């Protein structure tokens, strides 16, 4: 057997698996979205029916807010952890990356423990403070799993910044504020765009967390789920899935073009 044939054989199992369980189902999903009563006009319908349009807008707004918050928190913490060595640094880093392995449902439960009826906040504050099942609870849940992903991307980039740049700025008399704005943030910008795109895509597609928390809130994954299981509106569920998939895929393409490698999506 020639070397060329062997290499081709090596790729064969993956080619068969991908064709059968990825390519074929995705084509079917796209076709199924056009098989409803409305045909391909179903995509127009999404933009015209207030229920779907408001869901889309709501999901995008929450995801944008989560992205901004996660970038602010993780960039601050990431820069601090890269620039300072102190006892306990490793522990802090472990805590901040711990939720990487949590499924979305577990993240949802964490928010219930914080802001549910038996939650910590309700116990230590006077009055009745329950926010786990509101849009704010969902925001906190998404933030919970976004912080570690953004942190890792930003820290990897921050470690590559030459400390000499900051020192040069200092000797030239720049204030700490100017160093952040003129030296650190421009150097971190590609990583921040990449991390932001990952956070946005993950928040858009987060099903597990929404499943636990969003009993009263219409976010895209939950609407897809209810259209499919409760209404059996397969065409609409497929069309919304196609839109969701296209958005998250485009986001991760942006992320990869700014910084190679992506951190596991999910949640």
């Amino acid at each position, binding site marked *: 057997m*020639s070397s060329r044939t062997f*290499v081709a054989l090596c790729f064969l199992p*993956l080619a068969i698996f991908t064709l059968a369980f990825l390519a074929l189902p995705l084509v079917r999903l796209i076709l199924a979205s056009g098989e409803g009563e409305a045909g391909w006009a179903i995509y127009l319908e999404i933009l015209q029916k207030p229920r779907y349009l408001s869901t889309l807008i709501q999901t995008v707004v929450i995801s944008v807010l989560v992205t901004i918050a996660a970038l602010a928190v993780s960039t601050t913490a990431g820069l601090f*952890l890269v620039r300072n060595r102190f006892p306990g640094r490793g522990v802090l880093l472990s805590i*901040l990356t711990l939720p990487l*392995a949590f499924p979305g449902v577990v993240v949802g439960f964490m928010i219930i423990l914080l802001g549910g009826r*038996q939650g910590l906040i309700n116990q230590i504050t006077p009055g009745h403070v329950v926010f786990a099942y509101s849009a704010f609870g969902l925001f906190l849940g998404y933030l919970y799993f976004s912080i570690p992903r953004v942190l890792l991307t930003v820290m990897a980039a921050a470690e590559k910044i030459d400390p000499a740049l900051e020192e040069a700025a200092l000797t030239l008399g720049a204030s700490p504020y100017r160093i952040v704005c003129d030296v650190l943030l421009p150097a971190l910008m590609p990583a921040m765009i990449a991390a932001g795109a990952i956070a946005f895509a993950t928040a858009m597609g987060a099903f597990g967390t929404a499943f636990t928390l969003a009993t009263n809130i219409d976010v895209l994954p939950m609407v897809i789920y209810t259209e499919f299981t409760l209404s059996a509106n397969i065409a609409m569920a*497929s069309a919304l899935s196609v839109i969701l998939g296209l958005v998250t895929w485009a986001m991760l393409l942006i992320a990869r073009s700014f910084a190679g490698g992506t951190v596991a999506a999910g949640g």
Partner: protein
Amino acid sequence: MLKSPAKILQLAVTLIACAFLLVPTLQSVLAGVTVNYFQGVKSGLTLKWIWEVWDLYSSSIFLSIWLAFCCLICTLLIGVPAAYALARNPGRMSRVLEEFISLPLAVPGLALALALLQVYGSVQGFRVHWSFILVGHVLYTMPFMVRSVLSVMAAIDLKTLEEGAASLGAPAWRRFIDIAVPNAMPGVLAGSLTVVTLSIGEFNLTWMLHTPFLKTLPVGLADSYASMRLEIASAYTLVFFIMIVPLLMAMQWASARAQRILK
């Protein structure tokens, strides 16, 4: 260290973020071993809830371990040779193929599950078999295995190593088994740990693909959050933490080790 107000602010943000992530985790651990969470720790500590979780959900725990094991075997058998093929033929075509098999990273699990259900949902024996969930897990974890192995294979000088082996008369399959795979071991290890960790925690695909008789650990978790008392839900989460945290740490260690080879 804390010379300026800016540093103190940075430290404060870091600590608040840590508290936000850690406090509910600790609450969950505590609630899982407390007699009555509403009364607090003063009601006493107990392992009663853990045993109850074992009675109720041990089958879901074993199913998840079994699925993770099978998923690892599948990604190893399919992913490692594929990564080798991609490493041997670097170029535009390989990039496109790699991009395509990475789609499950970008497309949410819910959408993938809907797509799978529409093609294979009506195949009766397959739909209710655990291998249907396995397909979803393999689909989702495959890109991690391929990329992890491929990045190491691309970094080592595979061509020279293979030419040496070929000049000594080693056939193509021997070069793969004796040269390529052993040299890519750090990538294989990092990929394997990632696959197992992700498979055990996978929910988004599994929730759509599972049947009432095939509940995985995270599906059982969702079930307990919805219908069980807080102590049992917490105890179950605690069991999950005990399984996943060592795996996560091993995965981070192995990835850092593989990264060092790339430099």
